[in-house]
């Protein structure tokens, strides 16, 4: 029977579904829980107290809380590539077949070899590693560090690619309500009734917050019933989006909130087409933070012992999950709220051994409650130390009001040191919380713009105040978002006393008293930190690792501050507070990536001839976001160089064709288009004749080359610019800047035409003959009618409009023909067909690169953002008759220095030698030291035309050293040989082939 297998499950009660038992495993042990359980509550129900080991001392730890602030009960969930380390058992919704393992222990949880660390604890205090491991120096990396790394680190990642999918999505609303407890429900309800678009998020799988865990009555019905009615009304409202299992983890600028929805984490198996998690970016006009409060532990000896549980968590386990965390419970509380645990345990028939409350004068009601529960009351008492074995607590030492010490048997100690409002989100934009002495807690001072805090998150701990504040802030938010809201009736609730007396640390404890449970920071560590001068709260945090664990110190920080304040004699507000950072609870890295991983990391741009090129078996290369055909292998060609050389030879001797559509193309129109180009290019374009093309270079305003390309004048008021592939967007942005910001008075219109035109280079002696097969007969493309650097519009293939430019990157007789991009696929097939008699050969980016190097054209490797026009040998293009972008700054001595490296060509002296880009140039016989570095090789290619390797590069005084030799120094490849400096134009230096 299920009940037998769950020895610590109450026979009745709770919000679990006893009709739906769920099998699960922990450390290989098969157990049963119920739908509605968390992994933690199921473990509690099964009597499991030891759930993990701590970070540094490997101390045995059990469940401390019942929420996302849990520092102890971290497990590895699922298995294989879905293994998920450091998962809080308190937030895992139980599902059938769940597998969890404890972590940071070896060989087993009950016997952990590294628990010997506890024996060395006196040495492993705060900052110990800063003081040692320095000698011998080499030992740190070889010995000490690997040991430290291995011992630290909690759970194990799978090491395998995450197989699940993730999504990101945007949402918009008038009012975002963060937290679905009593405050949040009232806020959402009020805003909803006002007609505002409301999003209500709660990290839990059920709305209700503490109402699910307490025994409140609201308006005469149980809290859980009231939650059900309220959620039903919200669910029926079209203007409300309810998001369960959704944690708002961060506040960002301008009302943007990050939230994580756990879409499939509670499901046994993956649902097709559904993501595991979804990252929401919620843009909200207003937001209400109703995240509740987090109970703080009390710092005393052995307070980390499995069985020491937060008092409110005990109520969660008993009331919500009908699971009993102990058979002999003692309650240690400094506040009225903790007494609810006494009442609820008693009501559930769980023996309460003792109540220890440091307040000597307790109200009559509480004294009577202790009596009714049959508990021994220690008013004015404290728990000094808790003892037990690794599986749990066995006894506690209580210091009575009179100063004597009493030892009591208990297997569960419910502790409550008061409540800290969950204000983390209010500090994400930098505001600091303020101390409220009346409630002994920090509250938000200046929440982010548009966000208001309500209820327990605002320090209003009593239920009545939560309901009222929620309604008020919900109304305020709706009003601020432009709606007219009215306050609803606030349901009647009983009195809910919130008295407390601060107790930060129990003096005279004899054993280790933990402040930060997960990172094993003890009260002693804080004292050491203080004595060594690390007194600023930020120093304390960084020196001891306090608050740096997966819970960001939700249960630890305020206790630590109070202890530090006591040590320094300052007040808590003077001591200050550390800043919470997003995310509120840890978020899987994959969720932030969503769709954009693997092949979808960035969009892919395909050229007009992509389908055809793929049919030819071309490998593709990434050029920015584009994929371009690299070469077109023929059967039997196994080495890329063979294919590329064939393509070059075929082009230079016959005709080749290459898709150059990726080059940026910009229509520049308007009466002042020419004047505009004069200002952005170093050379002049206003004088360019219609039907002509000119090569241009544009600089940045700092005088450095930004981009180059050709621009054609198609009509009086219409120029057509081309840019390099990688700079297309950057140039467009630059031109828009020049037009809109610098010279708005010009009559210029700019439109990107990159995607409109499929553009192919047809190059080689047979280029014109090939083209003739495409061009409609009425057009004359003879050398006379369309000479080198001519441009025209015409029709091809029976009326298809096209643009034809007689320009050449290859140095051959060449054209670029452009047709509307949809026809690009047809055109490449047509070119291949009409060119077949001339041996037309497609060539890819590699052959393109070889031919441009043979012609000495600069490209990406040469245009590296530090090069001047003069460095490229284009100094004479820089007009002296006009202003243009970059002209003035290019005159600075550092850029005008004639000694600067210049672009020149290189040949290996031993012609069989392969050149490599990235080699540096040294004078012959000079030592290989930086002082002798004269430049470097930028681009190399095997020139099939010359039958040896050639290169381009920058060399100091290069232009005046043609014919000299230097050493190409390439130590990272182990190469060193002589090269000859030559003109960068290796082929047809006079350009005769261009003009035939």
């Amino acid at each position, binding site marked *: 029977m299920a009940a037998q297998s769950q020895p610590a499950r109450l026979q009745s009660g709770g919000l679990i579904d006893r009709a739906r038992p769920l099998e699960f495993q922990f450390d290989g042990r098969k157990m049963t829980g119920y739908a509605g359980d968390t992994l933690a509550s199921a473990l509690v129900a099964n009597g499991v107290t030891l759930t993990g080991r701590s970070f540094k001392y490997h101390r045995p730890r059990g469940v401390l809380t019942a929420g996302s602030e849990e520092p102890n009960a971290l497990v590895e969930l699922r298995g294989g590539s879905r293994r998920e380390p450091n998962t809080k058992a308190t937030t895992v919704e139980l599902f059938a077949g769940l597998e969890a393992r404890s972590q940071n222990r070896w060989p087993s949880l009950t016997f952990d070899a590294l628990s010997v660390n506890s024996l060395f604890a006196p040495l492993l205090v705060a900052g110990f590693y800063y003081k040692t491991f320095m000698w011998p120096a080499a030992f740190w990396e070889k010995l000490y560090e690997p040991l430290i790394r291995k011992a630290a680190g909690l759970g194990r990642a799978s090491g395998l690619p995450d197989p699940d*999918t993730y*999504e*990101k*999505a*945007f*949402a*918009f609303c008038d009012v975002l309500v963060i937290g679905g407890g009593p405050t949040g429900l009232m806020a959402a309800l009020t805003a909803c009734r006002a007609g505002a*678009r409301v999003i209500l998020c709660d990290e839990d799988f059920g709305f209700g917050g503490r109402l699910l865990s307490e025994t409140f009555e609201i308006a005469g019905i149980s809290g859980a019933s009231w939650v059900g009615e309220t959620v039903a009304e919200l669910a029926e409202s079209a203007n409300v989006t309810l998001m369960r299992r959704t944690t708002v983890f961060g506040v960002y600028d301008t009302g943007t909130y990050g939230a994580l929805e756990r879409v499939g984490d509670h499901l046994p198996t993956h649902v*097709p*087409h*559904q993501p595991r998690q979804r990252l929401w*970016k919620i*843009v909200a006009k207003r937001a209400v933070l109703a995240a509740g409060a987090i109970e703080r532990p009390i710092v005393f000896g052995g307070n980390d012992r499995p069985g020491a549980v937060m008092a409110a968590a005990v109520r969660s386990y008993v009331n919500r999950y009908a699971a009993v965390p102990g058979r002999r419970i003692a309650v240690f509380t400094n506040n009225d709220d903790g007494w609810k645990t006494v009442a609820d345990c008693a009501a559930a028939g769980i023996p309460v051994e003792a109540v220890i409350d440091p307040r000597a004068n307790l109200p009559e009601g509480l004294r009577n409650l202790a009596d009714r529960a049959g508990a021994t009351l220690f008013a004015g008492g404290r728990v000094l130390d808790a003892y037990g074995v690794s599986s749990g607590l066995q006894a506690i030492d209580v210091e009575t009001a009179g100063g004597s010490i009493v030892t009591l048997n208990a297997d569960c100690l419910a502790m409550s040191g008061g409540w800290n409002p969950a204000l983390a989100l209010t500090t994400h934009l930098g505001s600091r919380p303020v101390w409220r002495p009346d409630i002994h807690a920090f509250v938000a001072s200046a929440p982010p713009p548009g966000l208001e805090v309500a209820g327990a998150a605002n320090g209003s701990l009593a239920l009545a105040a939560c309901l009222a504040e929620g309604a008020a802030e919900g109304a305020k938010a709706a009003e601020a978002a432009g709606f007219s809201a009215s306050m609803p009736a606030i349901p009647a609730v009983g009195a809910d006393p919130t008295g407390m007396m601060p107790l930060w640390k129990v003096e005279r404890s004899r054993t280790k008293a933990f402040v930060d449970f997960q990172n094993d920071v003890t009260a002693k560590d804080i004292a050491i930190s203080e004595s060594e001068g690390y007194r600023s709260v930020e120093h304390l945090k960084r020196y001891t690792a306090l608050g740096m664990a997966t819970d960001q110190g939700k249960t630890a920080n305020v206790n630590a501050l109070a202890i530090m304040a006591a040590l320094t004699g300052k007040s808590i507000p003077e001591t200050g507070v550390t800043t919470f950072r997003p995310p509120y609870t840890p978020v899987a890295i994959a969720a932030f990536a969503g*769709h954009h991983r693997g092949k*979808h990391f*960035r*969009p*892919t*741009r*395909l*050229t007009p001839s992509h*389908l055809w090129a793929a049919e030819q078996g071309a490998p593709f290369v990434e050029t920015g976001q*584009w994929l371009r055909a690299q070469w077109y292998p023929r059967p039997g060609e196994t080495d890329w160089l063979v294919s590329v050389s064939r393509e070059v030879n075929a082009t230079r001797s016959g005709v080749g064709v290459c898709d150059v559509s990726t080059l940026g193309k910009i*229509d520049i*129109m*308007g*009466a*002042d288009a020419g004047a505009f180009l004069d200002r952005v290019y170093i050379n002049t374009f206003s004088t360019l004749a219609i039907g002509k093309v000119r090569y241009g270079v544009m600089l940045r305003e700092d005088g450095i080359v930004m981009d180059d390309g050709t621009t054609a004048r198609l009509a009086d008021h219409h120029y057509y610019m081309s840019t390099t592939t990688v700079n297309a967007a950057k140039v467009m942005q630059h031109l828009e800047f020049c037009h809109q910001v610098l010279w708005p*008075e*010009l*009559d*210029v*219109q*700019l*439109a*990107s*035409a*990159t*995607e*409109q*035109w*499929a553009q192919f280079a047809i190059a080689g002696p047979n280029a014109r003959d090939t083209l003739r*097969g495409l061009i*409609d007969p009425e057009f004359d493309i003879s050398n006379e009618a369309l000479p080198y650097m001519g441009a025209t519009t015409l029709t*091809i*293939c*029976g*009326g*298809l*409009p096209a643009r034809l430019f007689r320009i050449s990157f290859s140095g051959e007789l060449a054209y670029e023909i452009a*047709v*509307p*991009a*949809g*026809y*690009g*696929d*047809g*055109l490449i097939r047509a070119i291949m*067909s009409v060119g077949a008699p001339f041996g037309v050969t497609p060539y890819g980016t590699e052959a393109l690169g070889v031919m441009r190097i043979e012609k000495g054209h600069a490209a990406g490797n040469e245009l590296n953002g530090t090069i001047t026009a003069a460095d490229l040998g284009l100094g004479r293009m820089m007009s002296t008759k006009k202003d243009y972008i970059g002209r003035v700054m290019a005159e600075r001595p550092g850029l005008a220095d004639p000694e600067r490296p210049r672009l020149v060509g290189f040949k290996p002296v031993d012609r069989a030698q392969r050149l490599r880009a990235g080699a540096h140039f040294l004078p012959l016989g000079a030592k290989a030291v930086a002082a002798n570095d004269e430049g470097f090789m930028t681009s190399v290619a095997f020139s099939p035309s010359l039958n040896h390797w050639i290169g381009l590069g920058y060399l100091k005084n290069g232009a005046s050293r043609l014919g000299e030799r230097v050493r190409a120094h390439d130590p990272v490849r182990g190469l060193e040989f002589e090269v000859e400096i030559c003109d960068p134009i290796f082929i047809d230096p006079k350009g005769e082939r261009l003009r035939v």
Partner: protein
Amino acid sequence: MSDLALKPLSAFRGHLAFTGMSEASGAGVTLEVRDDLAMAIVIARKGRLAALAENVCQTYGIDLPAGPKRVAAGSLAFIGTGPGQFLAVEQGGDALTFASRLAGALGDAASISDQSASRAVLRVSGPRVRGVLAKGLAIDLHPSVFRPGDAALSSIALIGAHLWQLDERPTYEISVFRSLAGSFAEFIWSSAAEYGVTIDNP
């Protein structure tokens, strides 16, 4: 040589043939490729916006929108894309002559750049379409905020996108650069799959 008469290739060719596609009844999203749209960018010349508006109104009976709106008459629509800038869209006309027809009609009040081939347009509609687009688009498409006739230039899943709403079903047309049609189709598919997808034309 006119026997080579070329045919245009849809930018979505090869990209909307997903396997395992859910085409169950009550599909959340319907996709339709729009290869029948001719497009051109129309930019008012310096100081000529009023003249352009006058020309457009007289020639086409369309009041040029002052903001990101789509105003249609018959098969022609003008969509505001920026200050003094518009995308003219003609359905079913001759894309190859659209820009020159516009230029002829609008005279020297505007500069015109042919864009018929530069965009790939997908029509998306259905009850779950807003949920699909929210996975990549940072614009509020709630019916109280974004209505038929509204248009927006933005990006969807890192892909520059221009969308406009046609009706309250809702139906949107989304235009992306042609080279990105494949990545866009993959995103739409993976985002819509959980709701069920129907493709109206292959």
